[in-house]
């Protein structure tokens, strides 16, 4: 029987550990945007919507890292912009349109992937397979992480005004339309990087829980970004070390650990949690 020391000395395990740290940090960093934009549900639909894109790409171009990425981007654009289009050209609102488009797309993607007989891979897309990451996957995750963190940092000033007052930010000279597109792009990229680690069903957790945890303690929006990154990273790395001895699925353990950290914050936050004075007064 192999020990933990044996396991960690193997290349796939090292890669997985590195991936946990990187993807945990970038997703946690970006989760500040998702929390402040109050768009957790939208991100959830988007992440599910990636599946049909991947399925189509696999169907037409065969399974490779790049075809899957291209498919995911295409699907996200199709569902995001498609729902906007339906909302503008009918009496339905965008959320309703999203609800239909992403479930129908997800169903279609599932059927395509099951018909393709790559059952093994399908589970990985749905729930992630961080141990199965190749060097090239790691590089993609690294590139996306650096890009997302740099962009969110560079845009910090206008972004915070945009998040605080989306409807009036323009009066302060904030380029609202540009930020809308840029942040949409960043969220898609970050989702794709986490797809391999935690899969499209669990990725929302990684993109919401870290900053939501910091939000219960901090009154600085800037702290949400860095704090979210740190919690995302520590939670993911802790989950990596927990999952082996317990024999738990890593991706699920990551999201579970982040959920537990959030629950502890919710219980212990002096001002904005379960037992805060504010709540008792209300």
């Amino acid at each position, binding site marked *: 029987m192999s020990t933990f020391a044996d396991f960690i000395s193997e290349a796939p395990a090292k890669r997985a550990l590195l991936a946990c740290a990187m993807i945990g940090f970038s997703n946690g960093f970006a989760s500040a945007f998702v929390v*402040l934009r109050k768009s957790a549900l939208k991100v959830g639909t988007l992440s599910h919507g990636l599946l049909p894109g991947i399925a189509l790409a696999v169907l037409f171009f065969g399974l490779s890292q790049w075809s899957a990425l291209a498919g995911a981007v295409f699907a996200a654009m199709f569902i995001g912009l498609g729902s906007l289009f339906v909302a503008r050209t009918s009496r339905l609102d965008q959320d309703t349109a999203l609800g239909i488009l992403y479930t129908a797309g997800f169903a279609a993607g599932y059927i395509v992937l099951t018909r393709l007989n790559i059952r093994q891979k399908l589970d990985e897309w749905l729930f992630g397979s961080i141990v199965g990451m190749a060097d090239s996957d790691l590089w993609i995750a690294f590139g996306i992480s650096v890009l997302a963190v740099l962009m969110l940092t560079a845009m910090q*000033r206008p972004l915070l005004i945009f998040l605080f007052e989306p409807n009036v930010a323009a009066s302060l000279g904030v380029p609202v339309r540009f930020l809308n597109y840029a942040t949409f792009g960043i969220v898609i990229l970050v989702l794709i990087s986490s797809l391999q680690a935690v899969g499209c069903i669990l990725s929302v957790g990684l993109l919401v829980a870290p900053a939501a945890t910091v939000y219960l303690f901090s009154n600085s929006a800037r702290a949400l970004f860095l704090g979210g990154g740190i919690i995302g990273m520590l939670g993911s790395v802790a989950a990596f070390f927990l999952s082996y001895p317990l024999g738990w699925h890593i991706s699920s353990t990551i999201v579970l650990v982040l959920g537990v950290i959030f629950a502890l914050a919710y219980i212990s936050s002096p001002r904005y949690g379960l037992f805060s004075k504010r709540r008792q007064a209300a």
Partner: protein
Amino acid sequence: MHATHDPKHDHGQTHAHGHDHSHTHEHVCWGHSTHSPVHHRLEISNLKVSYREVLALEGINFATECGRSLALVGPNGAGKSTLLKSLAGLLKADSGRILWRGSPLVSSSHELAYLPQRGDVDWNFPITVRGLVEMGRYPNLGWWKKYSTHDEEIVERALAAMDLKDLEKRQISALSGGQQQRAFIARALAQEAHVLLLDEPFTGLDRPAQETLIRLFKELTREGRLLIASHHDLKSVPDIFDEVLVIKRKQFAFGPVKDVFSEKLIEETYSS
């Protein structure tokens, strides 16, 4: 003619001037010394605005200038908020012109501050009073310019002017209504805004807070700023404002409060 001004040139000039001026003087209203206030003129002509494809305002014509306070009065749905938003450049006008010192007002975004209705603000946002006021430096700093000691001084002064020094570390929901209003005015001061557009600033304030705000309004106009606020308490208009614009989708009256603001006018405007 104002219209012959090169807007870019003009913009740069005021910016540089505001910079050194705010160092040396107590109030931040630059331009007061070099240009006579008459040059600080806001002119609205033939403004027509639609909101969600429904005509909200038309035939709006008025001109006012810095150092005054103007009340926007009219029944609910008359287009007061719409007018403020189009002045702020948040709604595009169908036609007509909004000129500030001869150039489109929105092209000088740091000179103009829009203060939203209190109900429109996300009070749970993780930001302190100081953080909010610091946001006011954004139009001057842009994306990356370093936040300097000069910016710091302006923020300090804005906090002090609005009597918020003791509250600067508070999260914005932990303030009273009057304090919240003052925090947003402090941000406008930090922005070195010349024109303040306020949507129902007196709504929901208790009596003492209203009196404080009236006093601050007078100070701000004395410093040479132009204040334009929608206001629904008709009785208090003469106590707070110099001028009044009465609208109900169209312009009913405009002028000094003491000349145009009469019971008869109110009756005409508010009767449907």
